[in-house]
């Protein structure tokens, strides 16, 4: 299986080994073309146009919502388009949790969270006097499920916010169990799926989750758009968040009424073309199918792990039993930033740093980690190239 031909970046850089999909993925032609076409010949604002161009744009936008919703196992009236995962989490924190949070209440997060799933809750705690409770992970990078269940016993827990797949460790969390446990205690739960939705099937309805969030740009889709799934019964008991056009029923200076459902949370002109691209990215993934996608990425992951195992001076951080193709590591005597820069010279793109997960990286005792992340666009040659480049790093720092 080789999907490189789907990605035009290889026309410009035939020897690129792009191993940074976890930061943001490259884009297949079908996604780029759909957006280009929309801008070239199908563009108009949506929702209030009484001419065909606008009607069609509206239909396309709502069809995109349906596609993305279906891709995640949701109904279209449960799917809100947002600017991305970060914006989605902020929305849930402020519009859902803030009004029901009191001093002393608790919000559960894990050690593995991305800053996007820490800081919005931290802010809420500052605003209300509530507390962040942290569920730790073991040295393999696996969530402490027992500690989680224990923490849930406190009647002060008002929300759980948990990452589905760690962007540093690749760990796939046992999210179904986490959700059941939370539901059993009647605690609402948000799952951060930013690193999950491009790599494994997700069905929010089956999961029974309250809120699920992800970003298109990590799913071979465009920048500036993401999805927020809201379980149907929560739409009504959420406050409005951002306000303005398109989300109102009636406006007067002394009385405003709001729309219900997804429009309630989509103030202003939406990222119309982003939605089209997002839907196309979902279609692209669906057309390949999860079996192939997962087989492809797991084969590469096994190949990568095998190759890295032969380096005695490299230590992989994050060895959970259930992982996607994300591998963080440290190399003796060489700082991750130097590794990344030298690899770049060999056209190998990896990321180095704290990966927006400072508490996690610090927990493992490093100031920074190097991270390799795999996507559909990768092939074995990329890993061979990486290994050759790592040899060079060792030579330079010998």
């Amino acid at each position, binding site marked *: 299986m080789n999907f490189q031909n789907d990605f035009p970046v290889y026309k410009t850089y035939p020897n690129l080994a792009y191993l940074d999909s976890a930061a943001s993925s490259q884009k297949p032609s079908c996604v780029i073309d759909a957006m280009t076409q929309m801008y070239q010949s199908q563009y108009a604002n949506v*929702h*209030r*146009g*009484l001419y065909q161009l*606008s*009607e069609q744009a*509206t*239909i396309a936008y709502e069809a995109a919502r349906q596609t993305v919703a279906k891709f995640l196992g949701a109904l279209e009236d449960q799917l809100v388009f947002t600017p991305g995962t970060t914006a989605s989490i902020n929305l849930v924190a402020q519009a859902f949790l803030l009004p029901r949070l009191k001093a002393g209440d608790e919000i559960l997060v894990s050690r593995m969270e991305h800053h996007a799933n820490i800081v919005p809750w931290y802010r809420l705690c500052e605003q209300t006097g509530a507390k962040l409770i942290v569920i730790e992970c073991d040295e393999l990078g696996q969530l402490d499920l027992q500690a989680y269940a224990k923490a849930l016993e406190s009647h002060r827990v008002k929300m759980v916010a948990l990452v589905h797949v760690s962007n540093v460790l690749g760990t796939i969390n046992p999210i179904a169990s986490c959700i059941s446990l939370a539901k059993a205690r009647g605690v609402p739960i948000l799952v951060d799926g930013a690193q999950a939705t491009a790599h494994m099937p997700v069905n929010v309805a089956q999961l029974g989750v309250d809120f699920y969030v992800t970003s298109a740009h990590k799913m071979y889709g465009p920048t500036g758009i993401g999805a927020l799934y809201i379980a149907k019964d929560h739409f009504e008991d959420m406050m409005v968040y951002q306000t303005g056009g398109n989300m109102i*029923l*009636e406006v007067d200076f002394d009385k405003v*009424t709001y729309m219900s459902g997804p429009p309630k949370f989509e103030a202003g002109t939406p990222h119309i073309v982003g939605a089209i691209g997002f839907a196309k990215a979902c279609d692209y993934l669906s057309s390949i199918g999860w079996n192939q996608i997962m087989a492809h990425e797991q084969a590469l992951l096994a190949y990568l792990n095998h190759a890295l195992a032969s380096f005695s001076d490299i230590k992989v951080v994050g060895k959970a039993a259930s992982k996607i193709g994300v591998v963080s590591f440290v190399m003796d005597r060489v700082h991750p930033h130097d590794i990344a820069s030298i690899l770049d010279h060999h056209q190998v793109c990896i990321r180095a740093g704290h990966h927006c997960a400072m508490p996690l990286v610090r927990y493992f005792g490093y100031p920074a980690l190097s991270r390799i992340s795999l996507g559909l666009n990768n092939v074995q040659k990329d890993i061979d190239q990486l290994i050759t480049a790592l040899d060079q790093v060792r030579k330079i720092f010998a």
Partner: protein
Amino acid sequence: MKGLYQDLIIDHGTKPRRKGIIENPSAKERGHNPLCGDQIEVFLEIDPDGVVKRIRFEGEGCAISIASASLMAEAVEGRPAEEVQALFENVHGMLSGKGHDDLGKLEALSGISQYPMRVKCATLSWHTLMAALKKMGPVSTEGV
């Protein structure tokens, strides 16, 4: 303009039938589409068998919404309430582009399904009618 502004629509939109009010109606209801500004009020006189003996409406809106109300009033008058429910579902199917049975004159509205923004104009009067019937409780549709 075939799709949207058929002659029948212009005719009913500019010269609506059964416009007016009913004093002491069996039921009445207001409908409002804030996004369009369309307003309508539907008045019903239902006889003891549950038949819509008379229907009148007042309202302001675009030609589509007025024509739809006018055609609706024509179609509904004289029918038992339970048939009105079926008719509503049929019209709804037509306007949302799904399948539907033969609807006679009401088919002049069928082109609207291509214009999602206008569908609400056409359904306002129907939703208002259904709300009016509902107000009368299950009684009305069970033909007391």
